C-alpha cells in the first residue's frame, strides 16, 4: 500500500480547498441562511408543524443533505477531472500507486470537505432554529456515508466527463432535482398516494428520510430501508469505480 501517495493526493486536494476557503465555506453558509430566511422565517411561519416538528427545524436535515450531496459530487468530480483537463494526470498514472489508492485520496478529500461543510451548515442552522439530535451516532453514520457515497459518484462523473459542460450535467440535471423532490422541504406523506409511490423510486428519499429520523425520530420510510438503500448505492458506486480501474476507462488510452 502506497500510504505516502494516498496522503499526498489527500493533502493536495485539501490544500486546494484551503486556497479558496472563503468560497468553500461562505457559499454554503450564505445559501443556508437564505433558505432559512425564505423557508424558515417568511414561509415557514405560516406552515403548520410536521410530525410535531416546526417547519424551520424540519427542513434542517434536508438542507444539510442538499448541500452535502452537491458538495460531494462537485468536489470529487472536479478533483479528478482537473488533472485530466490540464494533463497533470500523467504523474498519477506513472506513479507506483494503484487506482484504488488514487480513489481513496481523491474521494477521501472530497468527502472530508463536504463533511466539514455539512457540519458548518448544521451549526449555522442552530442560529435559526432549536436543534435536537436524538440519535447522534446514526446522524453521523448517514452524514459520513452520504459524503463517501456521493464523492464516489462525483469521482465517476469526473472520469466520465470529457468537458466542463458534462461535469455540470449530472449534478444540475439529475442530482439537484432528485434532492428537491426527495423530501428536503416536505414529507413525502404530504403528496398524493400516486406521487408517494413514484417518490420511492428516488434514492435520495431514503437518505433524507434516514437522516431526518436521526434528528426527530420521524421518517418517510423505515430506518432499515434507509440504511439498506445507502449501502446498496455505495456498493453500486464502488462496483463502477472498480470497473473503471480495471478497464482504465477514460484514464488510459
Amino acid at each position, binding site marked *: 500500500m502506497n500510504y505516502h501517495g494516498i496522503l499526498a493526493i489527500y493533502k493536495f486536494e485539501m490544500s486546494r480547498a484551503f486556497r479558496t476557503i472563503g468560497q468553500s465555506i461562505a457559499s454554503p453558509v450564505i445559501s443556508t441562511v437564505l433558505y432559512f430566511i425564505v423557508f424558515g422565517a417568511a414561509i415557514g411561519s405560516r406552515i403548520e408543524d410536521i410530525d410535531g416538528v416546526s417547519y424551520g427545524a424540519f427542513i434542517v436535515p434536508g438542507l444539510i443533505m442538499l448541500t452535502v450531496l452537491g458538495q460531494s459530487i462537485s468536489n470529487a468530480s472536479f478533483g479528478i477531472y482537473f488533472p485530466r483537463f490540464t494533463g497533470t494526470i500523467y504523474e498519477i498514472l*506513472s506513479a507506483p500507486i494503484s487506482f484504488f489508492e488514487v480513489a481513496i485520496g481523491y474521494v477521501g478529500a472530497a468527502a472530508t470537505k463536504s463533511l466539514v461543510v455539512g457540519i458548518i451548515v448544521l451549526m449555522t442552522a442552530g442560529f435559526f432554529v432549536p436543534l435536537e439530535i436524538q440519535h447522534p451516532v446514526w446522524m453521523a453514520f448517514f452524514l459520513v456515508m452520504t459524503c463517501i457515497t456521493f464523492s464516489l459518484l462525483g469521482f465517476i462523473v469526473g472520469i466520465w466527463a470529457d468537458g466542463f459542460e458534462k461535469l455540470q450535467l449530472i449534478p444540475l440535471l439529475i442530482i439537484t432535482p432528485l434532492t428537491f423532490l426527495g423530501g428536503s422541504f416536505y414529507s413525502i406523506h404530504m403528496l398524493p398516494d400516486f406521487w408517494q409511490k413514484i417518490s420511492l423510486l428516488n434514492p435520495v428519499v431514503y437518505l433524507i428520510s434516514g437522516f431526518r429520523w436521526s434528528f426527530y425520530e420521524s421518517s418517510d420510510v423505515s430506518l432499515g430501508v434507509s440504511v439498506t438503500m445507502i449501502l446498496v448505492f455505495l456498493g453500486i458506486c464502488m462496483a463502477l469505480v472498480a470497473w473503471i480501474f480495471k478497464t482504465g476507462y477514460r484514464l*488510459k488510452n
Partner: protein
Amino acid sequence: MTPAISVQGLKKTYADGYQALDDITLDVQRGEIFALLGPNGAGKTTLISMICGIVKIDTGSVKVFGHDNVHDYRQARSYIGLVPQELTTDAFETVWKTVSFSRELFGKSSNPAYIEELLKKLSLWDKKDAQIRTLSGGMKRRVMIAKALSHEPEILFLDEPTAGVDVELRKSMWAQVRQLREMGVTIILTTHYIEEAEEMADRIGVINKGQLIVTEEKKVLMKKLGKKQLIVHLHHPLSVVPESLSAFELGLSKDGQCLVFTYDPAIQNNGVLDFMDALKSNAIGCHDIETHQSSLEDIFVQLIGES
C-alpha cells in the same frame, strides 16, 4: 547485467485504428544516455508513455530492472522519473509544494533537505514559494525536471526536454543531464534537436512510423553511416568534372569553384592520395583544401529517407 529498460515486441494501435508502434524491441543499459530520434508522429512519446505506464500495452512487454511494468508495476514505476513534453503543471501550487507532492506520490517520505538540495541544483531555490503560474517557460521546465527527480529515480525520461528553451538554458540542462549520468542515472531522451543527441547521447535509436529503424552506439553509427568529404577550392572554375578524374567519386559545386571528393576515412587506401596526384597530373590548381564530416543530422535524414 539486467538492462535498465527491456522492451520486447511492443505494439500499439489506438482506438481510431492508428498504429503508433509496430513490434518495438529495445534494451537500454544502466547508466547510459539513450537518445530516441524520430520525426513528428514517429511513436517516440507513445513508446515512453507505454514504458511509464501511462498508455496501455496492446502486445509485448516492458521490464524495468527486470520488473514487469504491468504485473509488478509498483516496483517498476518506482525506478522511473518522467519529464513530459508538455508543460503540465498545477498553476496555482508553489514550487516547493508541487515538488514535495511528486516525491510523496511515488511512495517516499518527505525529505525537505533533499528537496532543498534539488531546487538549489536546478536554480529554483529562490522561487520555492512562488506559484508556478508566475514562472517563465524555462523555469517551469526546470520545475518539471525537479518533480521527476524528487523521488530519486534511477531512470529519467526526458521527452523533448529543451523544446522552446533558449540556448543558454539548453546548455545548462545538458550539463545537468551529464551530472545526473555521472551519478548513475540512466537517461532516455527524445529530441528534435539532432545537435542535442550528438552532444549528449551514448547510444542512438531512430524511430519512424512506429518502427525502430536502428539502434547503435553514436560513435559506431557515425562511423558506419557517416561520410567524409574532401573539398578542393580551385584556382579556375570548371564546368564539368574532367573525364580523367572519372575514377573518383566526385561532385562539382554549382559555381564550379570546388571539387568534392567523398571517401571513407576508415579504409586505409581510400583514394585521397591518388586523387591529389590526379589533380597535379591534370594540372588542376587549387588554393585551399578542407574536409567535412557528415553530422548525425545528415545520417538521420538519410535513415528516415531510406525508411
